[in-house]
């Protein structure tokens, strides 16, 4: 469980990046953290990971204060940044050195993931491409079986088959105890994996809701609809698409991207969606 209580952070005084954020994130869920460039998604992940310290407010991760960087906290949390710098040793040596720091490390899982990602454990890490290094570290992160997994742009640099493998690995990783937060611009890569959405806008956490709950409130259609029900619309190559109030229990695939665009361009929509944070 991650508890944020009036959390605030800034790099420069007077320009908050995170402002008075209060929320609870529960285990057993995969959260998609969305926001425009520079809104503070990575910063929020870093504050949760303990890399940055909140300027005010409190944060607790599974009973630990991240800023203390205690060993029980660090050994039960993995942060996979967008850009990874790893030592120039072989993959096998890296596993041998670092696995002992994570009590729940599963060597069999790591081996399987390396095979799925087609990464050779005998290869030196600095000889691997950017995408391969990321896959290797992702495999390691998943194999640690930590209760908190923070991923910053995890599909950046991955080829198409690897993205599929990643989705598959992540889905099988989740348990009732694990909490995953994925910050990504590439929603289409993770659409099938995310079950909760967090939206950061103007230093506030404006949405924290499950997709199933949102889908009960909002529907998506490309058929012409009553204008009064339309919350947001987009004209795409294949025609108009509408985001509507779901007053008639319609079933439709929840379009995360369109929902995000709607929130950003028409923030007043949030007033129509109760208890989303």
């Amino acid at each position, binding site marked *: 469980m991650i508890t944020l209580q009036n959390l605030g952070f800034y790099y420069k005084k007077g320009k908050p990046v995170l402002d008075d954020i209060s929320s609870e994130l529960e285990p057993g869920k995969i959260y998609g953290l969305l926001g425009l460039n520079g809104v503070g998604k990575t910063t929020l992940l870093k504050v949760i*990971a303990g890399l940055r310290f909140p300027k005010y407010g409190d944060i607790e991760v599974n009973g630990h204060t991240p800023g203390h*960087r205690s060993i029980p906290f*660090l050994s039960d949390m993995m*942060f996979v*940044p967008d850009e990874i*710098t790893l030592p120039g040793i072989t993959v096998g040596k890296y596993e041998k050195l670092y696995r002992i720091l994570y009590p729940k490390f599963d060597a069999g899982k790591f081996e399987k993931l390396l095979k799925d990602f087609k990464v050779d454990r005998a290869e030196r890490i600095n000889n691997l491409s950017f995408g391969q290094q990321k896959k290797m570290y992702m495999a390691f992160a998943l194999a640690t079986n930590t209760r908190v997994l923070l991923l910053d742009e995890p599909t950046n640099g991955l080829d198409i088959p690897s993205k599929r493998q990643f989705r598959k690995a992540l889905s099988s990783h989740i348990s009732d105890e694990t909490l995953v937060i994925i910050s990504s611009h590439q929603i289409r890569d993770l659409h099938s994996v995310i079950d909760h959405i967090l939206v950061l806008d103007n230093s506030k956490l404006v949405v924290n809701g499950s997709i199933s709950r949102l889908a009960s409130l909002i529907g998506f259609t490309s058929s012409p609809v009553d204008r009064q029900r339309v919350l947001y619309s987009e004209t795409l190559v294949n025609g108009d698409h509408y985001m509507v109030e779901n007053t008639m229990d319609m079933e439709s695939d929840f379009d995360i991207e369109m929902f995000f665009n709607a929130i950003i361009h028409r923030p007043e929509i949030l007033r129509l969606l109760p208890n989303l944070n």
Partner: protein
Amino acid sequence: MIILFWLYYMLPDSIYHKLGNDYAKSENWRFLTIINNRTFLRAAILGVIPVYLYVCFGGYLRQLKTNSLSVLTPVSALERVFTIWIFSIGLTLVLLVFFLLTDELFAYIHRSLFWDETIRTLERNGELYYDFSPDFVFSTLIQADFPVGLLVGSFLSTLPVLFLTGYAMPKAAILFYPLLGVAVFILLFPFAPYTVVGNYQLNISASPLFLLVYSAFIAGIHFLWMVAFYFRIKENEV
């Protein structure tokens, strides 16, 4: 370093000879340069390799600080401090070994290249039993009783503190370290047993008691710096 030595011995117009040295104008300038016992200059040239190694390893230490993965490795701050301190001491010892080995190597090269020429020149001048003191370039700096005295000792024994400062406060490290070395020298000097030789030479004797005080003082500096470093690591944001 090889280039610097080459400039020193092969070019009479090089900067070394222009710095208060009249040898360049002399006919046998090379001979005079060789038998000149400018041990400080030799130490400065040999010091290039340790400085270069420090610059190489300093980047690695800084990367440890800025890499989010290393900051989040499940290792306590105390273990980090201790490990980096041991690394710094190890690195200091490696730099010293490099310094001593290159000193030995260059003394050997000098003997191979210039010994015969020097003997012949001296014999031509009627000097049959010339006294080659250990200060000459044919001996190592250690044999030359290079004044590794209190000042140099203060800098050498606090060198690991420089590495730690370069990690924690890189901008302050370059200014901080010389100040620390001088401060240690000034604080210890009143307790150092010394004798005056001639008009200007000060010999500091390494009595057991003084060495004990010196070691305790340096250990105290290291301990205080590690404590500061411990808290600096805990406050480090990436």
